[in-house]
Structures are given as structure tokens and as C-alpha cells.
């Protein structure tokens, strides 16, 4: 049966992984599982001149590593990610593809000189995870600023949106899922 697998890249506190796994569980009806074995060393994607990791390379590595997995793979890392043309990204996903990655680096308030706020940090992490997985399920950015698929390039914008899909995105998600998956995709709440 297809599932969403949550994996760490580099050292990621177990608590973060757990929070993401439980946090996204309600948003997708596909079961969410964790694999804490940490099979990817991100060093190959490191750019010393930028002191950042090239997220697209990490994504391809994920796809290779989990080629036999049915469903989606979401990687969580504490490293700062980039794509060459941009200064940074919160995460990246293959649109309507298999893999997604999020970075917790810029979600932490202490980066902005504010006192740590674990609760808010966790919320941001979950929103970004749902957002990137949304892309992997074929969703594009949404104009509804409360929808989790609303584009956000700063933490303020992440805080503004909710962690759930708007009605339209929910519908798109259901139709695309039922079209591509044989085991059916229905939203159900336990």
C-alpha cells in the first residue's frame, strides 16, 4: 500500500521528525510512516561558497534511494537549502512527483534574533511539510492566503497561512489522487 515516508537528512532531532509525521497525518489520507535510518549524507550537495545545500541534488538523491517505495518521500533537514538562482528556499518538491524536502533552518525564530518559540517552530515545520507534499501531489500555489498552498517566501507569510488546504485545493487533491492511484484516495478522519 502506498504511503508517505518521512526521512531525515543529516542530524535531525527525533522530536522534529515525530512532530512532522503526526502533524501531516490528518492532511493526507495516505498513511504516514517514519524511517529514521538516515541513509543520505548531504555533503555531496554542499556549496562551500554559499555555505548552503543544493536542494535539487538532494531531491534526486532521494528519488534514487527510495525508488522501490510506493508513494511519496518527504525529507526533513536542519541544513540551509538553496537553488542556484535564489538566495534560499524553505523546501523543494517535484511537482506531481515523488520527493519533497523541507529545511527547518529558517523556521527557527532564534535565526531572526527572537527568543525560541518551539510551538511556533513546530507549526511552521508542519505547514511547510504539508505545502511541499502538496506540490508532490500536483498542487500549485494557491491565491487563498489562508490555504497552506499559498506561496510564502518569509516566515511571516508561513505564520499567516493555516496548515490545511482550502476547499479548491482539497478538491484538486482528491481528483488528482483518484486519477493516479489505484488504491483510491479519499479524505477520511479517524
Amino acid at each position: 500500500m502506498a504511503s508517505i515516508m518521512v526521512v531525515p537528512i543529516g542530524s535531525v532531532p527525533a522530536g522534529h521528525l515525530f512532530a512532522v509525521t503526526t502533524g501531516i497525518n490528518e492532511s493526507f489520507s495516505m498513511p504516514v510512516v517514519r524511517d529514521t535510518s538516515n541513509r543520505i549524507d548531504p555533503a555531496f550537495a554542499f556549496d562551500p561558497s554559499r555555505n548552503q545545500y543544493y536542494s535539487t541534488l538532494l531531491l534526486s538523491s532521494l528519488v534514487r534511494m527510495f525508488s522501490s517505495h510506493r508513494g511519496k518521500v518527504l525529507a526533513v533537514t536542519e541544513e540551509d537549502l538553496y537553488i542556484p538562482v535564489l538566495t534560499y528556499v524553505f523546501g523543494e518538491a517535484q511537482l506531481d512527483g515523488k520527493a519533497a524536502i523541507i529545511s527547518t533552518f529558517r523556521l527557527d525564530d532564534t535565526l531572526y534574533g527572537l527568543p525560541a518559540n518551539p510551538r511556533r517552530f513546530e507549526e511552521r515545520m508542519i505547514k511547510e511539510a504539508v505545502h511541499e507534499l502538496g506540490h508532490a501531489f500536483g498542487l500549485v500555489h494557491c491565491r487563498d492566503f489562508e490555504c497552506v498552498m499559498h506561496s510564502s517566501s518569509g516566515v511571516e507569510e508561513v505564520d499567516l497561512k493555516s496548515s490545511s488546504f482550502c476547499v479548491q485545493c482539497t478538491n484538486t487533491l482528491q481528483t488528482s489522487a483518484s486519477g493516479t492511484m489505484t488504491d483510491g484516495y479519499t479524505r477520511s478522519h479517524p
Partner: protein
Amino acid sequence: METNSNNRSGILIVDDEFVVRDSLTKWFRQDGYRVEAAENAAGALKLLDKGPWDVILLDIKMPGMSGLELQKRIHEIDKAAAIIMITAFASVESAVQSLKEGAFDYVTKPVDPDHLSHLVQNALRHKNLSKENVRLREHLSTLLTPDDLIGESPQIKKVVELATSVAQTDTTVMIRGESGTGKELIARTIHINSNRRYFPLIPVNCGAVPESLLESELFGHEKGAFTGAQYKRKGKFELADGGTIFLDEIGTITPKMQVQLLRVIESHQFTRVGGSEPIKSDFRVICATNRDLEQAVKEGAFREDLYYRLNVFTVSLPPLRERRSDIPPLVQHFVQKYSTIMNKPVKEIDAAALDLIIRYPWPGNVRELENVIERAMVLAKPPSIKSTDLPFQLAQTHAAPNGDTLEAIEKVHIENILHRNGWNITRSAEMLDIDRVTLYNKIAKFGLKKP
């Protein structure tokens, strides 16, 4: 910035680096845009056919044709696309150059994601606003078309045809026609159909302004140029810059003004009264007259050189009495117009009244007709205008002198005066400068009867 699936905005990315193309394509696809990428100028030009592209991101430094060169090419093909230049290192000079060539903005790699998405959104907003602006202007030109130019007669059709064909050029036009035939309306039609339509049409009634003031009216004046010139003032020629100046009643200007006008019309340059700085203005001249200018030239009252300068293209408006078939639609138009303005449910005119109107010679032409209808609309009781609502000149077409004898003329005159005063004997006697008894006697003598 509508990004719904049917009408998605298109973004074209041109960069020689694969990673840039790849990452930007993915980034914008996730934003819901329609995205294509090309690695060089040739590929980009090919992709232009698959457009229209709303935003084009161009790398300045590329092997082969540079981004700057490509920008020019794209501009020739699609003026509307907003171009954003990408530079790998902040090469300010080429970025400035690209802005001068009309690029919307530029970014340096790597770009802040926040900045990039805002920039693209702004570019799209800008593009949509320009598109809307073009659309509104087109809409406006249709609204501007003067609907008052009414008539189906061959004479008026010919006039409209002449006016619209001369409109496209910058040729000086002279409009001839009796007073009230709609010379200004034709001037307006020419202006609105010309490329100057988004600039002003400045009408000047040369006959209405005394000569001493006409000079400052036309050319403007500097502060202190004459007593009372407290402020600098722009003249009509200056105000008409880019547009059209309409010189009405050109036949009335004095020889001195004629000389000045001739110079301005030929050089498009003048100085304000009391000023020394030459002012250039780009205007088109349309003039109108109801005088026989040829006769005036013969008599020496109108300069021949100015006459030839103005009389390049003539549009002659026929008097209303020569195109009576246009009277019914004109009447209907004015009834509609005043019915709306006065909010009065009078929508038609009865046959007898229309018959009177058609037969009247209309020395004042369309202007007189409009005034008669306006007056009738005030008096008319819904739903229609009757002959009694028309002024006495029309209603009383029978009151023409029957013969040339003094007595016949006296009879008609007394009848007219009585009619005008509503058969008020005292007022009519005062107007005729005779006493009331005499008037009574004359009424009895001519057998006049109160209607």
C-alpha cells in the same frame, strides 16, 4: 494577475545555465504560471511564437546574441511583454542599459525568493494595467464619436466621408458653411478621428474676442506684459500642443492678426505677449468661416497668403434647407435628447408640427432647429409636441405679406406683434409706438381676430 488554469500568465526564461532555467521553471510552475525556457536567443525567438508571454526573464550575459541584443529583438516582436533582466554579477552598466531600452527591471543572481515573486507580480500587474489602458482607450474612442452628427442625406454623408478621410492626415482644414450648420461638430469629428485624439481640441472663437485680447488669448502672455497681466498665461496655441486648434470665424480677424497667424501656422513657433522665449507647439489647424473669403481677399480685407495657407482642404456644410430629408431624424434626435435632459415623457412630434418644421426655411440651420425643439419640449404636454408648441415664426407661416403694398406689410406686422405679445393690446401698442385706440382701429380695419 489572474492565474487560473484557463488564462494563466506565461513566463519565458532565457538563460544559458541549465540550473537557472531548471530551477526557475520549477519555481514558477509551482506558482501556477505557464513556463517555458530557452538556452539561447535563437531558442527564445522560436518560443516567442508560442506566446504571448507576459513576463520574459533574460540573462544579460549569454554566448552568441547577448541579452541586451535579444531584448531589442523581442521588443520589436512583442512590445507588451515585461522584460526582467538577470545578471550573474551586478554589472550595473548593462543593467542600466537594459532599463533604458525599456526593460521592466533587473535582478542579480542569486535573487531573494521574496523579491523575485514580488517583482514578477508587479511586472504582471504593470502589463495588465497597460493592456487595460489600451482596451479602455479603444473603448473611449468609440464613446467619443460625436453622435450628434445626424443625417442620412447624400450631402451630409459626403461631408462625413471627407472629414474622416482628412482626419488621418495633419492637413489644415477649412470648414465652410452658414451659421448653425455644425462647423464645430465637424471640427470635433476630424479631431476625434485623428491620431491627435488623446490630446486637446482647443476651440477659439476669433469673432468673439477683441483684437487686443485675441493676441494674448492665442499666444499667451508673460507676467506684467500689460496692465492686469498679473500672472503668466498659456495661449491657445500652447494649450493645443499635440492636439488641434479650431479657429472659428476666421474671417473676422484683423489684418495685423492675420500676419501673426500666418507666421505661427507656418513655423509652429511663437512668443508669448511680452516674452522673448520662442515656444514650439505641435498643433493642427482647423478653421471655420461663414464669410465669403474669396470676396474678402479680392477686397483686400483678408490676406491672400493666409487664405491659401488655410484653404488647403475644404469641407463645405450644406445649409439645412438644402437637406430637408435630414430634418425628421434631427428632430427625433433632439426630442430624445431633451426628453432625457428634462426628464419629460415627450417622445414624439405630431405630423402637423413636423410638417411645419420641414417647410420652414431654417435660416439659423441646425442650431435654430435645436433651439426650437428645446423650446417646444418645455411647452409640450406629453406624449407629443404639437404645432401650438412651436414658436410663432413657424406656426405663422401664412402671415407673409400679401403683396408689396404698405398696407399689406402693415397688416402682417401688426399681426406678428400681437401674436408675439399674446394679444396684449397695451404692450403691442407700446411696441408699435401707437396708442391703444389706434391699434384697436387697425385691428378692426384689417379684420384681425384673436386666435
